């Protein structure tokens, strides 16, 4: 009889033993625990700060900074700049070195990655040695090497190396002519824009023609003519008429150093060199792995269709390899951005050096400054991944 009962109405399980209820219960406990921890930390910090009479809050961002920074992309001076401005200066310097670094490291990484797979023994071995050496030495050591051993060995300003065309090199950095824009610069910009739009339209047309008829048009030459030759001709014409849109201010010798012109700080160059060469070693490996992931049959098929090795790489292998390359490439970009904070060791005024160094020390508001800095790196990283994910979605295999 008993079995019959259990068949008709399953035994009433205790509420406590319901796995679903238990699951939810543990989740709630965890969330409450985490919230409590943060609440405790926040109230405790506020209480301790008040007891120790340490200033708190974000009001300090509006206070006058009173110190100078060597490289500023926005107007900043000790007289008028606030701590908030110093934060922006540091942030822009971080973004500048990261963006330029990502650009160059991508090029260098692809070149070395492809070189490692070269059939030329010498080229392949050189690329291999590069990768093995660069990625096995700590980045900080490499930065100090570039800054102290390489750039520090440059001559003093009074013996600057003259490199022609207004370029000078010395221990204080690279000096070059600074373009001064005249009133007619808008004409030049307009011509350049027309050239770019023209190129874009022409390329689209040429591609369509090729797809429909198979005829190929001289895309490269036309691009060059529209983007480079046209603006240069305009410039020459304007200069001949006597309304030169761009004049150059050359660096001159001053009491201590070259003055005028544009100066690129050795700290910036050392950081950029270090980040680019180091990250490129990792990107090279990512690229190599991506290319090796494309089956050999693809290359052979392309060859049998009559594509040259260059075309095979460009049109067949790389596009497929990109699917494998993009995700790890993204994390290398993030690494480069985060590693730029090592700037602090060589005096490049990035976010960490300016904000977590000088500003933190002058204001003493460690918690606020550290929280802001962490928030900034988190935001930069998330935005980079977001953009790369969009790109990844575009190149990923479309499953049917």
């Amino acid at each position: 009889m008993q079995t019959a009962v259990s068949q008709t109405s399953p035994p009433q399980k205790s509420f406590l033993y319901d796995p679903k209820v238990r699951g939810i219960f543990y989740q709630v406990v965890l969330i409450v625990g985490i919230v409590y921890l943060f609440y405790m930390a926040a109230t405790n910090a506020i209480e301790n700060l008040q007891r120790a009479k340490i200033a708190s809050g974000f009001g300090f961002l509006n206070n006058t900074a009173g110190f100078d920074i060597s490289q500023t992309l926005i107007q900043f001076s000790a007289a008028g700049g606030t701590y908030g401005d110093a934060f922006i200066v540091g942030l822009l310097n971080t973004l500048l070195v990261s963006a330029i670094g990502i650009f160059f490291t991508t090029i260098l990484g692809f070149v070395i990655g492809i070189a490692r797979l070269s059939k030329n023994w010498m080229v392949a071995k050189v690329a291999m040695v590069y990768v093995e050496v660069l990625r096995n030495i700590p980045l900080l050591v490499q930065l100090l090497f570039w800054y102290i051993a390489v750039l520090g060995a440059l001559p003093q300003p009074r013996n600057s190396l003259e490199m022609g065309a207004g370029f000078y090199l010395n221990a204080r950095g690279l000096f070059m002519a600074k373009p001064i824009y005249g009133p007619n610069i808008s004409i030049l910009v307009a011509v350049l824009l027309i050239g770019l739009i023209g190129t874009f339209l022409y390329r689209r047309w040429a591609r369509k023609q090729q797809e429909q008829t198979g005829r190929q048009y001289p895309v490269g030459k036309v691009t060059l003519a529209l983007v480079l030759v046209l603006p240069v001709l305009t410039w020459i014409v304007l200069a001949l008429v006597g309304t030169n849109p761009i004049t150059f201010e050359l660096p001159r010798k001053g009491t201590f150093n070259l003055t005028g012109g544009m100066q690129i700080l050795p700290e910036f160059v050392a950081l950029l060199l270090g980040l680019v060469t180091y990250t490129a070693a990792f990107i090279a490996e990512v690229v190599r792995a991506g290319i090796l992931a494309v089956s050999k049959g693809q290359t052979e098929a392309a060859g049998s269709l009559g594509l040259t090795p260059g075309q095979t790489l460009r049109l067949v292998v790389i596009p497929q390899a990109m699917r494998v390359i993009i995700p790890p490439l993204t994390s290398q970009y993030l690494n480069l951005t985060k590693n730029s904070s090592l700037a602090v060791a060589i005096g490049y005024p990035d976010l960490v050096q300016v904000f977590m160094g000088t500003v933190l020390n002058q204001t003493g508001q460690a918690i606020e400054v550290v929280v802001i800095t962490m928030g900034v790196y988190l935001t930069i990283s998330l935005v980079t991944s977001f953009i790369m994910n969009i790109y990844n979605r575009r190149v990923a295999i479309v499953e049917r």
Partner: protein
Amino acid sequence: MKKALVSIAFGLTASLFATGASAQATLNSVKQKGFLTCGSNTGLAGFGQPDAQGNWTGLDVDFCRAIAAAIFDDPTKVRFIPLAAKDRFTALQSGEVDVLSRNSTATMSRETQLGLDFPAINYFDGQGFMVRKKLGVASAKELNGASICTQQGTTTELNLADYFRANNMKYEVVAFATSDETFKAYDAGRCDAFTTDASGLYAERLRASAPDDHIVLPEIISKEPLGPAVRHGDNQWGDIVRWTHNAMLNAEELGVTKANVEQMKNSENPEIKRLLGTEGKFGEATGLTNDWAVRIIKHVGNYGEVFEKNVGEGSRLKIKRGQNAQWTKGGLQYGIPVR
């Protein structure tokens, strides 16, 4: 960098989770630990620097030894924690060190906004510049357009900006995290001039690859009252630090030295009797023993002795007493009476 992160991490975790030491706790916690933790310079000759054997020497580290002597009757019961300029106050605020004695300038904002107290000034200083002789510069007023190396997070960095602004001159600042990096960059030719407190200039010049190639310019562009710092709120601890300094000053003024301190206990001079604890109970009122000053002088010496040994004519730095002479000799060092 690592040090910075460590001390900031300490600072954060301490201020986030510590229940907060009660206001009078520093002396008790030092006694309980059995040693004093002292924030010192990462390396500044004459003020705080480890020698080849790893023994710390200098005016500022001797000050910490004096505090330890007063508490434990043993000047070796100190642990020195080297701190870069930009990490020092966080380390003190977070309780990583009990006292910060590393040539730090007392300023209003540091006392009011950073939550610190500067109970004593153990070295009156001012900021100066050092340049290479071959530049042919004789005055700081001729530095228009120069690159200048400085340490970040210091009053030096701010005074520099003020001075060039006030004199309407241009300059390029190159700021580094530690004094070591700063001076190395100057020595390697990254900058035309190096700026820090005048005492620091003489100390750092000793480390240059060719010390005689550098000169210190005559201008002193700021007031830099350097002294030990403690956290706001623990007045007993502040008193101990203040009176350690005053005991050393008074001892010098009264002629009590390391060598004669035991004899001086028999002195009939009431001022000496009060200082050495043979009359009155001044030491006990601070939470120490009545012979606290004897302990300091016996183990470390009076202010003049410590000055001579570390930075004075008897040292490599050869700095004159100047503003740091006793008030009776035209200086600014003035011991508050024990009474």
